[in-house]
């Protein structure tokens, strides 16, 4: 007897532009004391399906078309709003993706924690407080009494997610729905929270419905995996079966998209293109005495033709380092010697000459393109600015760029908002290539993309790098991606480089404790053995 059994669920959204069927004929189950993971990319309907169970879909424009959701003896989809309210936060609890926005900043943590107790069990404030402090302790919060009386903004993402988990478990629910609970967290924190959820699940014998876009994340903890695409379930089964014997083409695509393998060791002798020496980029925010040492005394080389990976968590300074090299962030001290010239000393026109030779690709594919310029204009700008071509043969060059990045020439007059994330990133890559640079800084270029698109863009970057003999500094927080694409790697922590070396060496035999903990946090250890 399953804890939860969903059959033939359908959900549509009715808007001015028509009716969109977000979920169709979806069925899955969660067994008692087990973890079912639902995997899908954006638009797969994975979140919508679960929100529908608790009636959390806004009612215009959302609409449940049909289906059954058996929970115990009841069909959730047939319940009234007040009956559902009785279940929310007591029998079924939910935690969400972004812990930074999911807690009310105007109420204390304690006030929010005790609400489920007071609503569903009519507990007194005193008893509720004791219970809440117990829970905070159970989820690993070090000073539960103090935390109880504090406000959310005083805590980090990981801590807030722990609070969310405590809040969900406080009424001893039978089922926990977790909507991408670790996606917004740093990789080491993610590992901790996954561990916490898995432990709590075992201790309390609850069923968990775990939504994610990342197969690797659920590989370690799921008892059952359900794969969704475009509103339908395409495959379901045990992790072993899914990973070793995927049936559906989409599942295979998902598995193939997981970055794996490494670059072959390059035997070629490489000359040094860039030398970074004693680089410091410090910020002095208003009202703070201590400067923020984003990049603190960093030195390394970048060899011509290589892909150098730069890996670290949030606050490590990796983005600032990339920006500093590009002269987008103000350098406090140190030098950046590009092909013999110190960039840190250049200004104005001299700097402009060098800008031609180094370009950048940014993380957010929407924000990195001017929303009011067509693709044509965006690509023409660098071409004309650096006189790569004249107005007469502008079209030829633009056409070639479009072909290089795999975009149909037909789209040349369209605006950024008319494209998908992956396509926009291709446009951004095209813009970067326009000036025929020697060096490219790629700042988390695939982090905002769906995993199948990620793979395409990574392959594109590798191919283009080879074709145009590019040197690349690839910044990312994702170790698997780095391993897939980089020759050498730099590991950063709090503004300093803690380890460096060829990818194979660092990943197989890390010497520094931080690197070791980073590598240990990579989810999906089970997967990488395939």
């Amino acid at each position: 007897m399953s804890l939860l059994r969903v059959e033939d669920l359908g959900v549509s959204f009715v808007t001015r532009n028509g009716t969109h069927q977000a979920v169709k004929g979806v069925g899955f189950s969660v067994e008692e004391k087990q973890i079912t993971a639902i995997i899908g990319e954006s638009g797969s309907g994975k979140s919508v399906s679960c929100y529908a169970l608790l009636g959390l879909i806004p009612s215009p424009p959302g609409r449940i078309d049909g289906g059954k959701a058996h929970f115990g003896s009841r069909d959730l989809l047939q319940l009234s709003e007040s009956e559902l309210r009785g279940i929310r936060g007591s029998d079924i609890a939910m935690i969400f993706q972004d812990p930074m926005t999911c807690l009310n900043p105007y109420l204390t943590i304690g006030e929010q924690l005790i609400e489920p107790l007071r609503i569903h069990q009519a507990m007194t404030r005193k008893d509720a407080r004791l219970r809440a402090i117990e829970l905070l302790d159970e989820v690993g919060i070090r000073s539960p009494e103090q935390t109880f009386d504090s406000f959310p903004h005083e805590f980090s993402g990981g801590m807030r997610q722990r609070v969310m988990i405590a809040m969900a478990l406080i009424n001893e629910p039978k089922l926990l729905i977790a909507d991408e609970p670790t996606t917004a967290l740093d990789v080491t924190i993610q590992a901790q929270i996954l561990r916490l959820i898995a432990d709590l699940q075992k201790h309390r014998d609850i069923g968990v419905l775990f939504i994610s876009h990342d197969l690797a994340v659920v590989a370690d903890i799921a008892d059952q995996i359900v794969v969704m695409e475009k509103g339908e379930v395409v495959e379901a089964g045990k992790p072993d079966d899914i990973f070793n014997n995927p049936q559906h083409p989409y599942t295979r695509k998902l598995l193939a998209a997981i970055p794996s393998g490494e670059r072959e060791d390059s035997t070629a002798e490489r000359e040094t293109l860039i030398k970074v020496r004693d680089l410091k980029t410090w910020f002095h925010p208003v009202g703070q005495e201590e400067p923020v040492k984003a990049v603190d005394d960093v030195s390394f080389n970048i060899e011509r033709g290589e892909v150098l990976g730069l890996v670290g968590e949030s606050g490590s300074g990796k983005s600032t380092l990339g920006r500093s090299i590009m002269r987008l962030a103000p350098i406090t001290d140190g030098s950046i010697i590009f092909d013999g010239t110190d960039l840190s000393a250049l200004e104005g026109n001299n700097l402009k000459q060098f800008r031609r030779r180094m370009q950048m690709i940014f993380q957010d594919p929407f924000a990195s393109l001017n929303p009011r310029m067509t693709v044509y204009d965006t690509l023409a700008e660098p071409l004309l600015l650096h006189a790569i071509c004249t107005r007469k043969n502008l079209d030829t060059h633009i056409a070639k760029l479009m072909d290089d990045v795999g975009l149909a020439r037909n789209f040349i007059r369209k605006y950024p908002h008319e494209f998908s994330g992956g396509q926009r990133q291709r446009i951004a890559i095209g813009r970067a290539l326009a000036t025929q640079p020697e060096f490219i800084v790629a700042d988390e270029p695939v982090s905002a993309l769906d995993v199948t698109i990620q793979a395409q863009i990574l392959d594109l970057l590798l191919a283009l790098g080879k074709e145009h003999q590019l040197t690349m500094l690839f910044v990312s927080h994702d170790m698997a991606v780095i391993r897939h694409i980089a020759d050498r790697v730099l590991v950063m922590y709090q503004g300093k480089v803690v380890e460096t070396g060829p990818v194979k060496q660092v990943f197989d035999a890390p010497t520094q404790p931080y690197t070791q903990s980073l590598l240990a946090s990579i989810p999906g250890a089970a997967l990488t053995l395939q």
Partner: protein
Amino acid sequence: MSSPVSADNQGLLDEAEQGSSLWQDAWIRLRKNRMAVAGGITLLVFMVLAILTPWIAPYGYETQDLDLGASAPSAAHWLGTDVFGRDVLTQIMYGGRVSLAVGFIATAVALLIGVTWGAVAGYVGGRVDAVMMRMVDILYALPFMIFIVLLMVVFGRNVLLLFLAIGAVEWLTMARIMRSQVQSLRQQEFVEAAISLGLSPTAIIRKHVVPNALGPIIVYTTLTIPSVMLLEAFLSFLGLGIQPPQTSWGLLISYGAETMEEYPWLLIFPGLALTTTLFSLNFLGDGLRDALDVRGSKD
């Protein structure tokens, strides 16, 4: 963005599918908003009437008919006459010229000063920004209503001064809005991309910052005009704004209020004119805000 015909060019642009810019999307959204459209049309009609007034007003501005005196609306005088026998419709039309002119001109003054100030402060940043915005903060804290009353009393009778005084109040908020827009744009990645391409600061401001900052500016300008008109009417009502022989809606309303018991139409019609104009501007402004705020789809 022309594509000169030459052997090298492959008619790339001609063959490509037309894109839909954000302005076009906003225009479509605006058109669907009936109240905003109604407001826009009404405003346009009023503006045209105001411009053509000297030629199309039914009576002369000065024309009096002392025998007739104040009379209710009739076939000869659609909106009635005032105590001097002057046609109310004519008065309203001439008053509208003044009220609308003050509204638009003072707003234009505020726009010019405010946008430039805010753009410079926002783009340059650092100490320049700190100093410029400090000045705005201090001026903002001054109780302007009182100052304007004072100014008008002291220097009165001067329509030009009226424009300047009102403009001097409104430019501050405009500067703040522009600065915050420019600041946030400055940090956007496409501006960083432009910098890393090697574009000069002027080119960046012109091509990348200004077109994207226009949205809120347009909305706020449309909403400033009614606020300015209210201010003028307020001052004129107190006797501190437009002075006779010129007239404005505020002045007409104050006269009408004096004799409203016997001749209510003298109050109601100018009031209607003012209120309708304010409605139109506000609905249009709200509609623009809704239409322009949506940034376009994200994945």
